[in-house]
């Protein structure tokens, strides 16, 4: 699939479970060789979307074209072309790493030797270890090996680093980047902004089954028109007036959550003195003050008023 045809194209996708709408009219298109991220909180419909694209869940409505083929018509052909890592798959604990990869290799008509794939995901030392003895990060790398062993044209990774420590996460990111360097496409879901910023050319921010923003991470962040995010908290007292904060010099928006205020700020050197003056005037006592560069998380917050990791 090195041509210009999109490896994945989704139009008007809809899926409901009883009375809960999981995916609500979703459109998306992957570009060849791209790593595309579906970003959103739990329950946003990411997994349902991916599982429909993987042919594991039937859609209620909409059109899904994967590598120029359709589910229900070219299933066997498609399964041989896709690499998949599901959320929370537990491989048999009594098998070794090598046995597990060999099993998955046996299902595919083509692909690298099991030992090669084990080496690529850096599990060579653990080749003969039982799956039950692997750490979380090693298990995720095994899942990646099983996804890669059929030499897929398109890779689906559903929350590949959820629950991992930062070091294991970075190790997995390196592996995913390496795969992408081979020119193949990836659809990735995550609720980690750093992951999306690091790996994805483009991300779609999902909420309540819909895409609410789409673009390169840098573009989305730039759309905030804020150079900085200022977070502060005040000691207990009368509530602050958000309107007065929004009117401050250099402040684009103000939002309160869990006792912490978040201001998106264009010019920090003007906003900070203005904020301090305003707080003094409202008689509020500052207990915390910090600032960071805006991230995709701030994009999500400004779009929905909620954090990504909120339920």
């Amino acid at each position, binding site marked *: 699939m090195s041509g210009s045809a999109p490896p994945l194209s989704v139009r008007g996708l809809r899926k409901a479970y009883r009375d809960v709408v999981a995916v609500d009219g979703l459109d998306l298109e992957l570009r060849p060789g791209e790593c595309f991220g579906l970003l959103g909180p739990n329950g946003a419909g990411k997994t349902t979307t991916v599982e429909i694209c*993987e*042919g*594991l*869940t039937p859609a209620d409505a909409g059109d899904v074209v994967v590598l120029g083929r359709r589910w229900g018509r070219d299933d*066997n052909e498609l*399964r*041989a072309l*896709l690499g*998949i890592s*599901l959320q*929370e*798959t*537990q*491989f*048999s604990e*009594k*098998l070794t790493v090598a*046995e597990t990869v*060999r*099993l*998955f*290799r*046996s*299902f*595919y*008509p*083509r*692909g*690298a030797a099991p030992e*090669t*794939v084990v*080496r*690529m995901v850096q599990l060579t030392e653990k080749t003969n270890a039982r799956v039950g003895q692997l750490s979380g990060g090693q298990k995720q790398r095994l899942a990646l090996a*099983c996804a*890669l062993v*059929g*030499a897929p044209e398109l890779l689906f990774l559903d929350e590949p680093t959820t629950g991992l420590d930062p070091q294991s996460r970075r190790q997995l990111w390196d592996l995913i980047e*390496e*795969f992408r*360097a*081979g020119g193949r496409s990836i659809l990735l879901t995550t609720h980690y902004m750093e992951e999306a910023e690091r790996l994805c050319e483009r991300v779609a921010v999902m909420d309540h089954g819909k895409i609410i923003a789409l673009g390169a991470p840098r573009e989305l962040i730039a759309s905030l028109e804020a150079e900085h995010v200022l977070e502060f908290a005040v000691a207990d007292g009368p509530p602050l007036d958000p309107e007065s904060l929004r009117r401050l010099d250099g402040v684009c928006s103000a939002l309160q959550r869990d006792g912490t205020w978040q201001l998106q700020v264009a010019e920090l050197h003007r906003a900070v003195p203005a904020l301090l003056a305003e707080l003094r005037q409202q008689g509020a006592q500052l207990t915390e003050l910090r600032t960071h560069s805006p991230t995709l998380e701030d994009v999500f917050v400004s779009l929905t008023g909620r954090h990504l990791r909120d339920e």
Partner: protein
Amino acid sequence: MSDLVAHPVRKRWSERPLLQLTLVRYREFVREPEAVFWVFIFPLLLAAGLGIAFRNRPAERTAVAVRASAFQATALADALRRDQRLSVQVLDDSAADQALRVGRVALLAVPSGPGQMEYRYDELRPESRAARLLVDDVVQRAAGRQDPVAAADRQISEPGSRYIDFVVPGLLGMNLMGSGIWGIGFSIVDARRKRLLKRLIATPMSRPQYLASFVLSRLTWLVLEVALLLGFAALVFKVPVRGSLLSLALICLLSALSFASLGLLLASRARTVEGVSGLMNLVMLPMWIFSGVFFSASRFPDAVQPLIRVLPLTAVNDALRATMLQGAPLGAVSVELGIISAWLLVTFPLAVRIFRWK
């Protein structure tokens, strides 16, 4: 990742999915010591325990007592002692009454004078009634009775009619059922619970091959399971196999397939191991009781016999017993084979049809 080139290669036989899947079943089984114990060792222990508990013992001597204070007690005791079937004690009054009361002796003989005898015993105890006959026989002969008919005793104890001969085919049938249903049920539901089943169907794996791998590995173990139990029973208890080994093998094969597909059916929907355990016990418990594993199914009332006859384990046990103990040819167990096949033909398609892959 330049290594990750897609070479279409012709796979060696060892890389074929059906073999790999079957190997996985095999590895999962041998790496679970508990499973190995329940499938292979437990039936042997059970056979050994039952064989020992219900072995045919040489007839025990019947314990009787003579009251020491009675008329010519010692002479009577000596006469009785000459009979091999009796064990005789001479006890004084209170000890004798006590021994009779607690059942340490079956009968108390109290000669009250010349030509007069009194037997004290409990009419409700079968051994006491037997002791009454034995002791009186000795007493009457010692007093000079002549028997008009000359009787000779020839004792027989033949393999094939003992309890162990009855129970070994039953244990074999029970084991075929247990390992078929448990072995398949648990692994499938566990794979479903761990979402491994879902992961597998996302690959080009053939679903019939996945299910077939369970049946294939079951059949491999079946050979060992049957050989071990029957070999043990033959060696230790001389339990016979009078029919042809081929018939026996065919019955075992058909039974294993039938129970495996019953296991498949029980596991086809359940999402939790607890759920499937309950279901499996619900199905197996009636068969443990009614299908004639430890005692004959014919002990149950006639009204329920038709129901008992159609249970797969009843058919399996009957077919095994007829073949092993009576040397029946396959034709003679065709009804049983028909019942076992019917179960297979109903459960397998149903299991495949309603199987939950996700």
